């Protein structure tokens, strides 16, 4: 059972959180976006082994945030609220 840190609430049990996708996957607006670009936004992932930068939500308070962690040893580095994170 991992401990994640909600930027507002502090450390909470992993079961209170939900994975929201990779950080930096910006949404292209409009209908003239190419099929490849749209598919890339919808589906393609870096899925890094090791250092990762991801969006998570703390379901109890609803905070969306960017978390940096390691996908192998599960060490959590930082948590920053989505609206104060760069290139979220």
């Amino acid at each position, binding site marked *: 059972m991992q401990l994640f840190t909600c930027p507002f609430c502090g450390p909470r049990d992993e*079961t209170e959180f939900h994975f929201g996708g990779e950080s930096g996957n910006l949404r292209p607006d409009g209908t003239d976006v190419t099929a490849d670009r749209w598919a890339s936004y919808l589906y*393609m992932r870096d899925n890094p082994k090791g250092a990762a930068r991801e969006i998570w939500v703390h379901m109890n308070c609803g905070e969306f945030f960017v978390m940096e962690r390691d996908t192998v040893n599960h060490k959590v580095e930082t948590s920053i609220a989505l609206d104060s994170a760069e290139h979220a």
Partner: protein
Amino acid sequence: MTRRYSALSLFKEGLAGQKGWEPAWRSPEPKKTYDAIVIGGGGHGLATAYYLAKNHGITNVALLEKGWIGGGNTGRNTTVVRSNYYYPESVAIYDLAHRLYEGLSADLNYNVMLSQRGMVFLAHSINEMEITARTVNAMQINGIDAEIFSVDDVRRVAPMLNFSPNARFPILGGGWQGRAGTARHDAVAWGYARGASRLGVDIIQNCEITDFIIEGGRCRGVHTTRGSIRADRIGMAVAGHSSVLAAKAGFRLPVNSYALQACVSEPVKPILDTVVLSPGTGVYVSQSDKGEIVIGGALDRIPSYGQRGNLPVLEGVIAGLLEMFPTFAQLKLMRQWAGIVDVVPDSSPIIGESPLPNLFINCGWGTGGFKAIPAGGTLLAHLLATGKHHDISRPFDLDRFAFGRLLDEAAGSGIAH
């Protein structure tokens, strides 16, 4: 040296102290060049190498494995073999695998212990019965053996289930595939390895890919911890680590890596004769020939490459099991583990040439790769040998994501996304 496996050879070897058996596969030093390279010594990679040699006569093949063959998901899954899928495209691929499994022990001269004890997928509500009917109808139309089970039918095949009307998830019936069952996972890997090695394939263990050799925009080989190895056709089947190799080759995949847990109880005398799946509780269970209750876990909720189990998911899975099999509460958990699986948005595999020409991929099987090993091997071998898709693999090309032509079995079974 004794090569052929049979009751007679076992008997003869018994008289001679079992000392005449030859190695199950050779462990040669890697050569500088091959006609083809297969990356990944799991079931899919080994099957690919075997079928390259057997179906296409391409025997100058290197199979490169980072650790030890069969040490990844092939040796960590719950060994279920089935083909009860909804879409015709899925049926085609899993049925191919299923049929090859049925002849595999004879083909490989290696007992993979395919045990077709049938599988029941339970329905816990009227709505689930309707969805089951829809799925069974689709299977019948697609030529797969499937039938609807009444409660009494379910009771006949799995009497230990909780048939109380007061159960949290009462059993109203379900679907049944009689040809489904289990196979011995290690035997599948070792059987393919032995078969491939005998046909000339070099199985090279402890050989990790450090980079791809890319020349003129095409893949021409690999750099490894055991030197550079060249070939003009390279296939990769490295479930769980597909994205890592893709990144080295310069492209991305629609894949997230998650841990999938499984666990077994201590061995007990036979109490469960079929495979039982209860989608409502997430229970996916069978009893091994050794007597262990083999419990398939739910996917973890946190992307990870850490090959280990955790507690919350395990608790939920076991709670579901005990709700469906209350008397199993007297059993003890003996071992818990996890494998890393490729999770793809539509939960269907990806097979085809990658964005890097000459490099072909077989990945994205999610939680269901084991049952597909013979098909995954056949289809990747076909791609490597001919450079072209087999009809069965065409729908599973990576290009389906841009076209929007996803093959989502979960969506097909009535789940709105």
